[in-house]
């Protein structure tokens, strides 16, 4: 409907036109030079955004391309975060080994969650995945080995191999930003390419009609669980990076709200499109973590809102302005642009292409 393809090579090429290559290069150049013009706080915010981009892109494979629903992705995210940190501290593994191992553990749990998903759909699958997310949060919160309710502190961010005496510690926000950026680029490329393989096309066929997919010879058991596992792998990698971006986390970081936020990111961005997931993740993270962070410093409306709060509302509840903003943006986008930000982009493009008409 949106992307018409006429040949196989058109389907597998990474960039559709020279314009896209040009703008991608400009965008990457801006991202790589970012630390030159912004403060540490914004580097932190952008690192967080990119972590969520990884998770959103992975969730999009499951929800957007395979048509399953997961409200338990905070669970995989938690497995990634806890797995990476614990493998590094208890087993003394180097960072890259630990994060990949943790992501594979998350993928294994994704496979396990994919098994009941073979029989469930719609609201029933929602409840099953939601239960998984809650269960992970509670198991972590009640086990001393995982730090219990106190949470964990991430160790020094050493991306070398300290066991062989080759240590390379990232302690500044700038270096963490670059590492997260490289991870994000790699993971996004992986996601784009997965959708162009046999497995990716099988996912899309399952989304469009699972019975028809089975009839043309797609192994539903294999590809549905594979989709869950892939998506959990992405969430695991995101979680591993998240642990070091935050530096400290407890089980309640990974509550149900986070799973819901992940789903909201990809739906608001536009289901089934990688670019949509990226823009959705960036928009929602900005709204959740940055907008109205300090209400009195917001330009134009800040002082007004504070005065209004003192007069009619409470000032303690002003921390929750971002919830109001996110809620309104979500409803607005769904009402006026049901295909999300990506749908809006497609419409804009069509409008300008055929402009006078």
């Amino acid at each position, binding site marked *: 409907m949106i992307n018409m393809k006429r040949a196989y090579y058109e389907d597998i090429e990474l960039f559709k036109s020279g314009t896209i290559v040009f703008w991608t290069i400009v965008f990457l150049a801006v991202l790589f030079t970012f630390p030159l013009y912004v403060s540490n706080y914004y580097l932190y915010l952008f690192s967080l955004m990119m972590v969520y981009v990884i998770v959103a892109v992975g969730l999009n494979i499951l*929800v957007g391309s395979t048509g399953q*629903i997961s409200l338990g992705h905070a669970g995989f995210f938690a497995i990634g975060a806890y797995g990476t940190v614990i493998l590094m501290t208890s087993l003394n593994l180097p960072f890259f080994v630990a994060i990949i191992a943790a992501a594979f553990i998350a993928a294994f749990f994704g496979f396990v969650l994919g098994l*009941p998903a073979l*029989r*469930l*759909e*719609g*609201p*029933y699958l*929602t*409840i*099953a995945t*939601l*239960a*998984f997310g*809650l*269960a992970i949060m*509670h198991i972590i919160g*009640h086990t001393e080995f995982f730090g219990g309710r106190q949470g964990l502190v991430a160790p020094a961010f050493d991306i070398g191999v300290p066991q062989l005496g080759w240590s390379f510690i990232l302690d500044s926000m700038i270096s963490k930003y670059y590492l997260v950026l490289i991870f994000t680029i790699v993971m996004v490329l992986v996601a784009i390419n997965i959708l162009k393989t046999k497995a990716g096309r099988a996912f899309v066929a399952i989304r469009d*009609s699972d*019975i*028809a997919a089975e*009839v043309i010879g797609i192994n539903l058991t294999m590809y549905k669980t594979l989709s869950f596992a892939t998506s959990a792998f992405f969430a695991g990698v995101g979680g591993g990076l998240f642990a070091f971006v935050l530096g400290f986390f407890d089980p309640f970081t990974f509550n*149900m709200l986070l799973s*819901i936020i992940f*789903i*909201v990111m990809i*739906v*608001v961005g536009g*289901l089934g499109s990688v670019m949509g997931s990226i823009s959705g993740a960036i928009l929602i993270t900005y709204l959740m973590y940055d907008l109205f962070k300090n209400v009195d410093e917001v330009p134009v409306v800040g002082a007004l809102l504070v005065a209004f*709060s003192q007069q*009619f*509302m*409470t000032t*303690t*509840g*002003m*921390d*929750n*302005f*971002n*919830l*109001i*903003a*996110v*809620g*309104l*943006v*979500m*409803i607005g986008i*769904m*009402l006026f642009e*049901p295909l999300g930000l990506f749908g809006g982009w497609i419409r804009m493009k069509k409008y300008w292409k055929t402009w006078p008409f």
Partner: protein
Amino acid sequence: MPFGQLLIDGLAMGACYGLFGLAVVIIYKTSDVINFAAGEMAMFSTFVAFHVMSIFGYPFWMAFIVSLAFAALLGVLVDYFFLRPAKNPTLLGLIVITIGANMLLAGLASWKWGAEQKQFTIPVSYSVTYEPFPGFIISQWALAVFITAIVIVSFMFVFFKYTKMGTAMRATQQNKHAAKIMGIKTDRVFAFAWGFSSVIGAITALLLSAKTILDPGFMIEPFLRAFAAAVLGGLMSIPGVLLGGFIMGLIENFFGYVWPAWKPITAFAVIVLVLCVRPSGLFAKHYVKKV
């Protein structure tokens, strides 16, 4: 804690989950929307009752009526402004709209009343107990829950069976387009369903606030359990939801007594196991989608 009290408590909590599950099911049956805002809508209505009682100083019955009227209005408004304008919505799109409404209401409530816990008392207390037979202790609160549940369920039975609006709702649920052709104003039926569901939710939330606490997040957990109970019952049948609620409440109370630390997730684990065996809940006919 003796067996009898655990049983009564479990049944009372179960009745609350069942009632709240009804609020979810009424909307799902008529308009195919999973209402993730149900919890926060009920929370907001409870805060309205709190405001009328504590800030304006009116008696409870007044607060009760105002709160229910507000709940009905809120349900209709959410449907009118958020759900009705949606063009060709998908299942996930509708879920996202209700989640948006949920966040909006949560933000507004904690802006207006602050995020801290509130002192809110309704005339039924959890600590006042009766013992009609020895060893059979029932609290005033549980009694109130049972009476409310019986009243609401019998009202719904009569409503769906004998009134014009109830028949229209059943018709809309079976086939929206056919109902429209028959002259039923389906938009009005949806608005009514939202208002009705919101009122049931508000009554349940008022009862729950007497047992737990009152703060802007107090309905999140009960909503999840009620949703799970509704799913267990099959999301389509009213007796199924009530039974799902009772199962949920009993499992939670008994397992919670044996392993307090795992209380929040035992019921969910059981539900996932049940769903693995019966993928559409206990009471729904398994519906096979054709290509």
